[in-house]
């Protein structure tokens, strides 16, 4: 029964990882930007949420109403300024700029907010509450909510990309930005919109992680970025639902690892990631075209 519990927990945590991963996947798919600061930006969103809750005393759950738009605007601005500037130069420049951003954010947080970890909404019934199935399986309400949010975000993203006006523009620009430009689409603006959407999901991921666990300056890289990336690769590059599958596989592998020995949680996840990289580098669900 402990194993069944581990698998259920793993599947639910996988939703959180998919939430981390979809922004990374979107930015790569559209702009060919691999944002190495992805995780650190999620931590920034979490810290902003903590600040907003402390200052305005709004209900914890509604903090996303402020944080998501703030991060989306930040995403648009970053994309239109330094990310676009780097894109105009080279792939290497985008990697260096996002890596620089990652190191600057992480050490900046360390300087101003110390290395202490902090959580969001600890003490909230939703965060600590759970329900039981039988005597062995205990499921936290929060993880169920996060999983549901992840599915809703993925469904929303898919709907947005396939049928909204901006979604069509984003797909057109991702396919061929010069041709889209000729047809009258300002690809820089469209890139900005895509970045804003990606940063919105990053904000949700950061807040969700802050409620599920604790945020510290290093959480952004050693947990969020690397897990998001592992989920993307396991699921298959460029597939939204593959990302959810990748997150679930990673989550289940980690929980099974934690069952074997509590210190093996992260290692088990990465070993599954490396196994996929060695045996099926195109990912579990592959569209073939993007690699």
């Amino acid at each position: 029964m402990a194993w069944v519990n581990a698998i259920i927990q793993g599947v639910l945590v996988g939703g959180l990882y998919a939430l981390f991963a979809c922004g990374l996947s979107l930015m790569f798919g559209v702009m060919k930007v691999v944002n190495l600061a992805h995780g650190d930006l999620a931590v920034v969103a979490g810290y902003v949420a903590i600040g907003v809750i402390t200052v305005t005393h709004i209900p914890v759950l509604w903090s996303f109403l402020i944080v998501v738009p703030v991060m989306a605007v930040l995403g648009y601005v970053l994309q239109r300024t330094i990310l676009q500037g780097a894109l105009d130069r080279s792939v290497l420049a985008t990697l260096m700029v996002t890596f620089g951003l990652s190191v600057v954010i992480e050490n900046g947080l360390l300087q101003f907010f110390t290395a202490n970890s902090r959580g969001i909404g600890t003490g909230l019934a939703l965060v600590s509450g759970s329900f039981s199935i039988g005597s062995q399986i205990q499921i936290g309400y929060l993880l169920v909510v996060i999983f549901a949010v992840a599915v809703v975000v993925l469904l929303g993203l898919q709907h947005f990309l396939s049928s909204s006006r901006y979604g069509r523009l984003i797909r057109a620009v991702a396919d061929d930005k010069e041709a889209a430009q000729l047809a009258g689409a300002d690809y820089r603006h469209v890139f900005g919109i895509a970045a804003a959407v990606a940063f919105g999901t990053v904000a949700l991921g950061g807040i969700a992680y802050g409620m599920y666990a604790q945020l510290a300056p290093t959480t952004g890289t050693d947990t969020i970025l690397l897990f998001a990336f592992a989920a993307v690769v396991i699921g298959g590059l460029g597939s939204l639902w593959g990302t959810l599958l990748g997150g679930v596989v990673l989550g289940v592998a980690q929980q099974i690892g934690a069952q074997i020995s509590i210190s093996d949680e992260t290692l088990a996840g990465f070993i599954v990631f490396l196994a996929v990289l060695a045996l099926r580098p195109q990912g579990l669900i592959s569209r073939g075209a993007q690699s």
Partner: protein
Amino acid sequence: MSLVTETTVRPAERFRVTRSRRNVVWTGAGALIVVVVLALFPYIVYSGTTAILVQAFIVLTMASMWNLLAGYAGLVSVGQQAFVGLGTYFVLILALHGTSPFAALPVAVIGSGVAAVPLWWLVSRLRSGYFAIATWVLAVTVMLIIEKFSSIGGGTGMPLPGLAGFAPTLLIAYTYWAGLAVTVVAMLVIYLLLRGRLGLVLTAIRDDEVAARSSGARVGLARMLVFVVAGAGCGAAGGLLAISQLQVQPGAVFSVQFTAEMAFVTIIGGLGTIEGPILGTVVYMVLQQTLASYNAWYLIILGLVAMFMALFARRGLWGLVDARLNVRLFPVGYWLRLDK
């Protein structure tokens, strides 16, 4: 008479292809003098200065290796700390078995190079940005595996044995010479590799990968060779790190901060030139020494400067020097000279 006919009638003997505009012997002699003077430093300066220079040697070796990867082979690795960490652990394991840490250095180099082969097989399937994060995951995985062995300190690490017999001043001097030797060998290896066939193949790949492949360049092999050499070089830097810090702690030696330092130093100094990392290391050491009492600030400033350089001065500080003076200390390209 048109220009075209003029060039076609020019006799072939009037062209000369050289490595450098100035005589290479002079730069060679200059480099030799610098190395000899540096080798005498333990006799003429305080041990505090040599200890700082050891740090500079470590940074320069790592940055040169990262420059070889990113600047010449287009492989942006964010996981070079895997090899720094492996280097320290090779030295630690051999020291635990009674070998002198200094004698263990060459083993750390070879061991890290050999370890790079299977790791390359795993990450070589991914390109650019995904390659970068994959190397990072690999570095974390290597660390998590090493932490499982409690005989080498597990997750907390342990002090490096085998150096207690040395007098402190002598130990610093030996460490300094080892650092100088590692750096000189590393620079020499990079220089000779880039001057040789590999340098040509890498230039061809950089200009046009498909054309290089179709002319018979073994692109995969060239990249793997660079990855292995960079792994070995970072392993050497890691071995030095273990000796200079006398303490091996997995979280510290596998820190992504090392890759941040090597990347920033290279970008600031000038990516894709051998001289760049040298200049970048000077900037790094100055920043690090002035801001030493302000914790992570030097890294923040270094990161901001590197971002600025990546956006506005792609060729780095050396690029600015080169644009004015047109000099190469380590000529690896070719000049076409027209004799009048």
